């Protein structure tokens, strides 16, 4: 297998926030881990602060997150890849795909080298025709200081792919040495944020809780900062028409926040160290594309940052993406056989979303080459499935990121049970090695024994009556932890607390989980109603021309997927169902 990159030195680089996980993304990292991916292990090995978000909320939205030491993270990844058997790393820029009819057979590099292959996975990040904007300064670049990939974008357009433009951004980086944290903390303008103790790792395989080695700081923007943005808004490429690409609504730039929420007099800002040995501080919440001098003015207006030095200004980056409705659920394009796309090229934002797609595209490319059945994760099985189905069914109008609300079966798609959902499936196709498999089986056995223990052991209720520990766990104030403290012998592996979390959630919210399972089974019916690849939508009266066009673009694989296409009415779904049933009746009759 060959891995072609513009620069071997930048493998594993985190160009934006050096953090992994967060809401929905944390669950996704656990799913990647459950299928043998590296992301969880990498962050556990190189993280500097670990925190579970949403702890005041319920178990389905608890989301592990960790900040990385960005240098160590990249080094860890590069080393693993360098030592991975069967991977050849090639430095160079791909100019175009080599094709045999409508099937890809390899890649041609700008320098004339060619590499043949039975499948190709394209993961261009933000490099495809990338343009970086800082005020009116605009230059072609994939990430700051790195040249973009121009030829491949043109090539994909020429092949007929629907290519659009998206935009994302990153905040300025400050010099840690230039900030007097102690003074700002004692003045009450910075608030120190610690990691969780004990910390919760991202990987199911991490046995010891990783340590928190840094603190972060929280502060609020001031009315002066907002005033500075408003004064110079005409110089923002986002507001003067220079940027055409569409940015993410849910991760707005600082100028967007100020302009779109004029009645908010302050916005939250986090200062996060980018590593142990680096001077850079990431200013979370202040992604900007204003000119450098304005950024300096805005930063200096923040309480506590009056004399902070800006090492690098924030910027916006515009890049090409391919409408993911061009893809099948395997992430293979329908247009070109054996060509797979993953990551930002499919319209997503975020490392985790990219990693999840990379895993699925890689796995399916390998399975296709070996002539084995595809590996598709259902919406009811994981956020991986939710994400891919959303992308291929709905397409992208703005950068896509996962949210827990996108999942119909959220109660089931938790961070604590990602392995229970996916590891067995991963094992079946050879993604899960023996060490992970053994650990997983041991965990499953512990879970069964713990359930037995809870049913067997009785405890004293406040009323004096004896009830089973299982029933006691259903009471609001009782947790698996309190039962453990009360001397009930529940087994659990050292780090992560997955065992207790799974046990507790399954029992405490068993009624909800069972109901959702029943709903899930009902809904699955439509997922199994297949729509043939060559189904003719044109001429079905009752479907509007727009909808026919949409259906032809998406080519849904099942009735369930069709029903999720934007613009699909229930009546249209019924109509489609009617025609499908008639067609299949004609075929069998």
């Amino acid at each position, binding site marked *: 297998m060959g891995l072609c990159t513009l620069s071997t030195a930048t493998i594993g680089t985190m160009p934006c926030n050096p953090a992994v996980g967060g*809401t*929905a993304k944390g669950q996704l990292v656990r799913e990647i881990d459950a299928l043998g991916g590296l992301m969880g292990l990498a962050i556990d090995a190189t993280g500097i602060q670990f925190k579970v*978000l*949403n702890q005041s*909320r*319920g*178990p*389905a*939205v608890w*989301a592990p997150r960790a900040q990385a030491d960005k240098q160590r993270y990249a080094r860890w990844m590069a080393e693993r890849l360098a030592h991975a058997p069967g991977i050849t790393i090639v430095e160079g820029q791909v100019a175009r795909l080599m094709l045999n009819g409508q099937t890809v057979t390899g890649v041609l590099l700008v320098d004339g080298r060619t590499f043949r292959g039975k499948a190709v996975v394209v993961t261009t990040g933000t490099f495809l025709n990338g343009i970086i904007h800082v005020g009116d300064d605009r230059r072609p670049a994939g990430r700051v200081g790195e040249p973009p990939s121009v030829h491949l974008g043109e090539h994909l357009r020429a092949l007929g792919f629907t290519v659009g433009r998206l935009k994302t951004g990153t905040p300025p980086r400050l010099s840690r040495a230039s900030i007097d944290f102690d003074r700002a903390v004692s003045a009450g303008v910075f608030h120190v944020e610690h990691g969780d103790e004990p910390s919760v790792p991202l990987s199911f395989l991490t046995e010891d809780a990783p340590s928190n080695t840094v603190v972060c700081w929280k502060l609020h923007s001031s009315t002066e900062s907002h005033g500075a943005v408003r004064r110079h808004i005409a110089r923002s490429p986002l507001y003067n028409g220079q940027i055409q690409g569409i940015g993410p609504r*849910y991760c707005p730039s600082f100028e967007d926040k100020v302009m779109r929420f004029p009645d908010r007099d302050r916005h*939250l800002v986090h200062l996060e160290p980018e590593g142990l040995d680096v001077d850079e501080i990431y200013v979370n*919440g202040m992604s900007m594309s204003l000119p450098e001098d304005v950024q300096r003015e805005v930063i200096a207006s923040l309480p506590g940052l009056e004399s902070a030095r800006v090492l690098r200004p924030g910027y916006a980056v515009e890049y090409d993406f391919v409408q993911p409705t061009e893809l099948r659920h395997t992430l293979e394009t329908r247009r070109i056989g054996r060509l797979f796309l993953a990551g930002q090229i499919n319209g997503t934002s975020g490392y985790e979303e990219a990693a999840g797609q990379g895993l699925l595209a890689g796995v399916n490319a390998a399975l296709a080459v070996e002539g084995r059945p595809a590996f598709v994760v259902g919406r009811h099985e994981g956020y991986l499935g939710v994400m891919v189905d959303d992308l291929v069914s709905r397409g992208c109008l703005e950068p896509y990121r996962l*949210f*827990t*609300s996108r999942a*119909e079966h*959220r*109660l089931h798609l938790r961070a604590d049970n990602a392995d229970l959902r996916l590891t067995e499936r991963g094992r079946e196709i050879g993604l899960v090695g023996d060490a992970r498999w053994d650990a997983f089986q041991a965990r499953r056995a512990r879970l069964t024994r713990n359930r037995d223990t809870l049913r067997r052991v009785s405890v004293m209720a406040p009323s004096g009556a004896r009830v089973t520990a299982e029933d006691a766990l259903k009471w*609001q104030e009782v947790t698996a932890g309190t039962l453990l403290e009360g001397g009930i012998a529940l087994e659990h592996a050292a780090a992560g607390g997955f065992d207790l979390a799974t046990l507790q959630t399954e029992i405490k*919210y068993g009624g*909800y989980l069972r*109901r*959702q399972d029943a*709903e899930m089974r009902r809904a699955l019916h439509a997922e199994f109603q297949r729509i043939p690849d060559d189904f003719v939508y044109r*001429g*079905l*009266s*009752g479907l509007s021309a727009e909808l026919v066009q949409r259906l032809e673009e998406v080519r849904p694989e099942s009735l369930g997927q069709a029903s999720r296409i934007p613009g699909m*009415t*229930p*009546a*249209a779904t*019924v*109509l489609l*169902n*009617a*025609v499908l*049933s*008639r067609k299949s009746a004609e075929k069998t009759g």
Partner: protein
Amino acid sequence: MFSTDDTIVAVATAAGHSGVGLVRVSGPAAAAVGCGLARRTAPWPARRAVRTLVAASDLTADALVTFFPGPASYTGDDVLEVSAHGSPVILAAIVRRAIELGARPARPGEFTLRAFLRGKVDLVQAEAVRDLVAAVSPAQVRAATAQLDGSLSAALVEQAEALRRLETLLEASMDFPDEGYRFIEPAEVHAALARVGEQMARLVATGGRGQLVRDGARVVIAGVPNVGKSSVFNALVGADRAIVTPIAGTTRDIVSERMVIDGALVVLADTAGLRDGVDRVEAEGVRRASGAVESADVVVLVLDGSREILDEERALLRSLDGRPAIVARNKADLPCAWAAGDGVVGALPVSAVAGDGVAALGRAIARAVAGLSGGDGEAVVVTNERHRVLLARALARVRHAAAELGASGHQLPEEFVVADIRAGLAALEEVTGRRTADTLLDEIFAGFCIGK
């Protein structure tokens, strides 16, 4: 299921002879059928009734033909309506000719099914069309009309919107934890759920009155033996024989008729044939009769005016206190034997034998029934059992969410509240057909007559 993109034809008016009959055609070939029938090639003027001779098979008939181009038509397709003299021979010939010109016979409810599939009506409205056609009482017409004009749909949409708003705010709280606050406080969620639950409960509660509208009020004629209950029953039934339908499965010992009295749909039950007997069969009959009185919506107590009131009858009168009841003083053709001051206030004089007072008794029954489904309550009444069941399911989930949130002291995590809200929404949307199963549609539209 059948094809939904070809052209269908059916006689829309009732079978048999009538002054005017209507043939309806819907589908892409509607205009061609029109041209073929009228032997013309010119484009058809939209929405204008054109008087023309139509050539149907070996007949020629005088007809009024109107063309409604889609999508602004009943079904959303191109629709052609042909009104002709209502001879079944003529109408059948027009249908035959339409079939020669490319249409196929429509199945029951297929026109309305198309209207639903083309988004012209929601499921609730489609069902209202069926109910409206089948309506026998003004209350049924009123309920179906309210349903058809979208009043029920609007109420459901309003509740769905309230739930969706809660869902959105709760989701925002979970998805954006960095913002560090809740977009809606749990107490507010609790209050909103209670409000929606209350609205839903009111709607579900109309199901009782809805049943009265749909199936008719149970009016039971009661009284001791030999007061003339059967005569009163027969006199009431006789007046409206024409639209009476017998109810299947009536018990041998209670005779009942479904009929419309003075505009009110009732199931009139006679406890005649029952005597205070000693043998076991009769004792069983008495037990059933008193059961019928217990479950009646309105009781008509028949007394014999030609003799004094018995103690037994006084007991019966007392037992009806506070219930919708009418007292009939039968045998009014004979001299009244009730002592002054001993009479019953408001007793209606009736002579079942002579037929006097029967009309007044009918009016009194209709008034009592109107009082049951009275104008005091909601404007929208749920008459359809499918709607009631789904609404009750939605209500159960909303109540469960509110109850669990309350029981936890507002500590129940948001995702569990949302799980109930989403399930409640799904049930609501199933009512209007925003979510639906194919088999359900078959069931609903199978209940239609052909041509609708």
